[in-house]
């Protein structure tokens, strides 16, 4: 299986502050969780991978193409799905129009759009609202419509920034099942600050703290870090693992600083 995301020495700046500091990362097919405290650099990473923001330094290769070159970037974008943390929509659009519009922006063959739109909307559980105007939807439904636009082109690389925000617990469970399904054929990168999202849906975890990679491993490994006494169904083990990994990272930084 090929590596679909390769990031080398990536540095991202927001005005004066450094959001990501010389980060190296690789992602392959499957569901990957980006965990970290708020402001750790998760969104910066997602936005750079979504090709909407430019890095200050470093090399990014997506789906085997260098996104620095225009032609390559366009090819990557056709195979990309992106859900920003906060996104807008045209309130007068129906869900169908909203998703179809993004399908058009993604240059999907026109003949396939109607089917793909209905499929995407069905997968996020909004089939009964497909012809409802966006402005009448609840926050959770808008978020789900956002997920539908991200997956309408069956992306090879799917980037979701806090996709579970605003979803109720039952919708979260359904959404995680959808993630797993998508991860069978695509590379899915999900940023979240909820450890339970990662525990339930992701195969691998990348922990980001203050613009650096604090931990990388499988979900099982992070859980194991939380102590063996936690059973499979015990969500606390992975939370302990998260805290342990974070502390170990901070301790090693403090060590290095001395």
């Amino acid at each position: 299986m090929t590596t679909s995301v390769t990031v080398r020495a990536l540095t991202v700046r927001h005005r004066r502050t450094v959001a990501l500091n010389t980060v190296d990362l690789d992602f392959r097919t499957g569901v990957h969780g980006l965990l970290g405290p708020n402001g750790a650099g998760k969104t910066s990473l997602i936005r750079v991978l979504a090709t909407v923001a430019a890095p200050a330094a470093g090399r990014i290769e997506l789906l085997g193409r260098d996104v620095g070159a225009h032609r390559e970037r366009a090819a990557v974008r056709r195979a990309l799905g992106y859900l920003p943390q906060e996104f807008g929509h045209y309130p007068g659009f129906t869900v169908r129009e909203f998703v179809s519009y993004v399908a058009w922006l993604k240059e999907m063959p026109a003949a396939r759009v109607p089917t793909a739109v209905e499929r995407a909307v069905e997968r996020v559980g909004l089939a009964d609202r497909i012809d409802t105007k966006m402005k009448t939807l609840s926050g959770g439904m808008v978020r789900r419509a956002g997920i539908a636009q991200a997956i309408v082109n069956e992306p090879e690389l799917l980037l979701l920034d806090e996709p579970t925000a605003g979803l109720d617990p039952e919708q979260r469970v359904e959404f995680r099942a959808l993630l797993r399904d998508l991860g069978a054929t695509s590379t899915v990168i999900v940023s979240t600050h909820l450890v339970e999202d990662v525990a339930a849906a992701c195969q691998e975890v990348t922990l980001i703290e203050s613009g650096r990679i604090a931990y990388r491993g499988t979900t099982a490994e992070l859980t194991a870090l939380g102590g063996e006494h936690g059973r499979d169904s015990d969500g606390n083990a992975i939370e302990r693992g998260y805290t342990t990994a974070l502390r170990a990272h901070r301790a090693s930084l403090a060590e290095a600083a001395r």
Partner: protein
Amino acid sequence: MSATHGNPTPPHGNPTHRDGNPTPPHGNPTFPPLNPTPPPVNPTPRRGSPTPWHVTDAQAASYATGSAPETDAWSLEKHVESCGDCAARVSAAVRATTAGPELAAIRASILTAATTPRAVTGRLGELDARGGLRLSARGGVPHFAARASRLLWAAGPAVRGAWMVAVVLVGAAAVALAYGAGYGAARQALLAVAPVLPLAGVAVSYGRHADPMYEIGASTPSGGLRLLLTRTAAVLAVSVPLLTAAGAVLPGGSGGPGAAAWLLPGLALTLATLALGSFVGCRAAAGTLSTAWLLAVAGPVVGRPGTGSLPLAADLVRLLSGAAAQGAWAAGAVVCAGLLVLRRRSFDLMEPR
């Protein structure tokens, strides 16, 4: 769900299984007895390595009927994952069994689903008991309607929103002033305002401030310059005929600029907005250039209050009339277009905050 399905045969029960194996450990076509030594061939990863044997017709038939022993089945299953010829052979053998008609039925419904644009809100691929696609009562959106509405989306927020109203209002107000209030310089006033209306249209059509879907669009192949040009074209397609027609029905006065005199300045300023917008964002560019234009037109009027409409007309004449002025606007438009071509890649990423 169970592994016990069709595995009645004891070990070594399938003497034909290893036929065709070029490296049988003991030259024995059956399973070798328990072998305490490693196999003579290096255990390389299964994918991509040369496969040491192929599925025989007998093996395919025994697998197809479900009578192959479990371990023989495993070998075959891993093998057909990477060998198209054997996959076809086994598939043909399965079609020859009682599963044949069912496979044909599934084939038909998959191809139907693939070739028919779907008008179903339910899950694609759902089957009723007879294997036909279940269709919902509700029909889908016809293709031409979808295409028409897609044009409207491309046109963007401006053409559907407040800007459109503003353009119509400006045109209508000029006509009302001229014929309702008898205002003599209505065309001049319209010509003074007309060139900045497309700029306003661009400003409210594209960019992080104007387009709520800007960030989603920025991650798509069409979200950059292509979308900007599409929307600019839509803005011009609406404003040019409306404003020119409004100007044409107004009394021109003697020696004043014609109703079409604003077109080249309008185009030049629009292209300048796009070019400048590649550096500072479209809203800031449109604001800067609109202010500059309005100052050039109205500044002298503000400086000499109480002199009526004549100075405005005079400044407009200076800016719009004559081959020299129009030629300068045309040259400006060409320069801005050239600059825009040079800067085209800058719209690939999101514009500066």
